[in-house]
């Protein structure tokens, strides 16, 4: 499944400009702990989080994740969005809480393991 299908399906708002939404998503990860994501998420995964610290972009970039979904309408600051655009990491926002987002991604067939 590609990123744009997921964005459409969950009505995600895309916050970063000039990013590739045609990328294949290989799985999902949910965590608010950056060290945990660096340790356990895999390439091509979509990451669901409430965390908006600048470090989320570095972690996503390091692990070559497909994108980040911010839950509960969490708004990243400009610095985070700017860095995400530079690093080509799509950041998307939803009003839903993490459990609901993960449930819907799971319904679409995404898995972590």
């Amino acid at each position, binding site marked *: 499944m590609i990123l744009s299908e997921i964005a459409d399906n969950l009505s995600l708002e895309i916050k970063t400009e000039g990013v590739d939404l045609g990328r294949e998503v290989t799985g999902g990860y949910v965590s*608010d*702990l*950056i060290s945990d994501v660096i340790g356990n998420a895999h390439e091509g995964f979509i990451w669901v989080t409430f*965390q*908006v610290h600048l470090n989320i972009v570095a972690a996503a970039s390091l692990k070559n994740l497909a994108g980040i979904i911010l839950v509960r309408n*969490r*708004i990243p*600051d400009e610095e985070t969005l700017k860095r995400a655009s530079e690093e080509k990491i799509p950041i998307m926002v939803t009003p839903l809480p993490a459990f609901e987002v993960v449930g819907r991604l799971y319904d679409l067939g995404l898995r972590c393991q």
Partner: protein
Amino acid sequence: MISNTEGTFFLTGKDFVNAGKASSRLKKVLENLGLPPGIIRRASIAAFEAEMNTSIYAVAGIMHYYITPETIRVEIKDMGPGIEDIALALTEGYSTAPDYIREMGFGSGMGLPNIKKNTDSLTITSAVGEGTTLDFVINLTGTSEGAEHDTERNC
């Protein structure tokens, strides 16, 4: 009728095992007074967030509660670094917490907004280099439980 009740807990900074203990004990006090669960939840959450702030940022602090038939009043006074810009600190998502605090599940910039959300009035006074005092009140009369602060639908 609730009789006037007051008490004080001492808070130790940088002690994550015990951080939250005072709020837990406050919750017990409120339960023993037979207050409605929604009120207890709001007061406990506000006290807990304030206690965690003390634990994260300060060397030590004091939590004093004073309960009357009309209000729950809690004052948390810490010996910490102080807050430079209180309006900014009340902004959702604003945080000065270091990375290791975030990795422990705090410092997401939701603490003060959460205290504000759960209380009927909140006063913050702070002096940089000296410390911060939070004073919050939850009304026990007038509004029905959680009517204006329905924590379950209003966030």
